[in-house]
């Protein structure tokens, strides 16, 4: 059996790639995909830890996280489409109407 540490390391790597992706990419869709990567890194961690503890809890939590992620996708896509309709082009650098 693969030791649980491998899974958690992979999950930490995925999570960090997601965070870096959010910070360096400019396209909202790609940023959004990076966020999904973060959520899925958490899912992997939940399953791995659940397996280690010999519980089903970890897998059940993943179900709920996936549902939440789907709802997030729906809302996020709807917002992106709304902006697309208004401007025909999406880029976070264009979102600069408001400045401090």
């Amino acid at each position: 059996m693969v030791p649980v540490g491998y899974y958690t390391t992979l999950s930490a790597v995925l999570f960090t790639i997601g965070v870096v992706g959010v910070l360096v990419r400019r396209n909202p869709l790609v940023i959004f995909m990076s966020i999904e990567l973060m959520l899925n890194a958490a899912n992997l961690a939940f399953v791995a830890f659940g397996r280690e503890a010999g519980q089903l809890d970890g897998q059940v939590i993943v179900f709920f996280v996936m549902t939440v992620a789907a709802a997030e996708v729906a809302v996020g896509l709807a917002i992106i489409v709304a902006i697309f309709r208004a401007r025909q082009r999406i880029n976070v650098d264009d979102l600069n109407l408001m400045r401090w």
Partner: protein
Amino acid sequence: MELAFPVIGWRVITPMLLVTGTGFACLLLDLLPPKERKGHVAAVGLLGLALAGLATGLLWGQRETAFREMVALDEFALFFNLLFCVATGLVLLLSHGYIRRQGIEQGEYYILVLFAALGMMLMAAGTDLLIIFLGLELMSLSLYVLAGFFRTRPASNESAMKYFLLGAFATGFFLYGIALIYGATGTTSLPRLAEALARAELGRDPLLFAGLGLLLVGFGFKISSVPFHMWAPDVYEGAPTAITALIATGSKAAAFAALLRVLLGPMRGLQPDWLVLVWILAALTMTLGNVVAIAQSNLKRMLAYSSIAHVGYMLIGVVVGTQLGAAAVLYYLAAYTFMTAGAFGVILLLERRGAEAVQLGDYAGLAARHPLLALLLALFLLSLIGFPPTAGFVGKFYLFSAAIEAGYVGLAILAVLNAVIASYYYLRLIVYMYMREPEGEPVVAALTPAAGLGLAVAVWGTLHLGLAPGPLIGLAQGAVGPFLP
């Protein structure tokens, strides 16, 4: 596998069930004509919130958990239920005329406000990190959509997008934090987490600390504490003003409820570890919020930075961590809800040339044109400064004295200094309203009966909590009883 008929604790979730039922009823009602006017949906929503508030009152004093200790019925949850019912009710009252004037009256608006309220209630009642997460998401997803409800206005779109991307980013941290805590302790339930942490060898697990840190980042985003505050001003400015009020009051209170339950509940034993972190967050948040607020000429942005500063004050109560400190946070949240909802309530009634009057200049000489509204706004601003005899004064006094009593004199002094800085930008607005000549086109006010009722409630709350704070202080102290006896 032994299967038994599950025990379903309906009673524990009565207020939430009522709000859910109202939400579904409003969904169906929205499908029926008339298509243009949706006032009746708002009325049903208000009725549901009133019923939920009533149920909360009837359940007061009981303690129970249900669904395998995932949801709790205790004074803490009930206190916040009441707060959310009031905050959401105020927003519904203020919204009705406003969104009709802005031409975005749709049933979805009220339904989403109700579901956001449901999410907040779940966050306050959840005793499992998973339930808190689900409540947080239900609330946030509703608010993302509501922030972009002006579909044709670029500023509103932009605000929804920023709120969504940064909020979802924070969700990622929050969730990964839960995952690491689950890995360290094998449970996400707060009571069992407390048991696990009581075992000494687990108390020093690096996974746990990393998890707690990520969880704090997630909470920091939701309560908009510095350095996770950058979304707040943009979102507050672009969102419909009534929704800004909801984001500033309800969503913040919900995040504080969950934060208090987690930090002062199972994580209490780790206080030496998170204390310094929260101390720094509190100091940074109030200072930066107040200093940047001075530079703002847009009222919604100014109130956004002011709300960041108030988060800093409330974090003091978390740092203090005593029964007095936590109760002071609850009291402050209630006071803040009334005065902030009131301030945004006045702003959303005022228009100039068909656009919302949000610039400082729009308020020059307001007292001459609309003496009543100017008086109300002045009252709410004085309360935000912390002037006696308003709710804001009692809240600040209570909070700062809790800090001094627990020995955090430095933090208390910093907070008082901040309150002095803050009075500058609030008073500047009052000076504009009372001592300047009106200039340019006249500012019109669109006071509707519903909005009038909402403002009356806000005024009542602001004055009542200031003049007779005793009962609510008692309630707040009882409310933190479940984990701070």
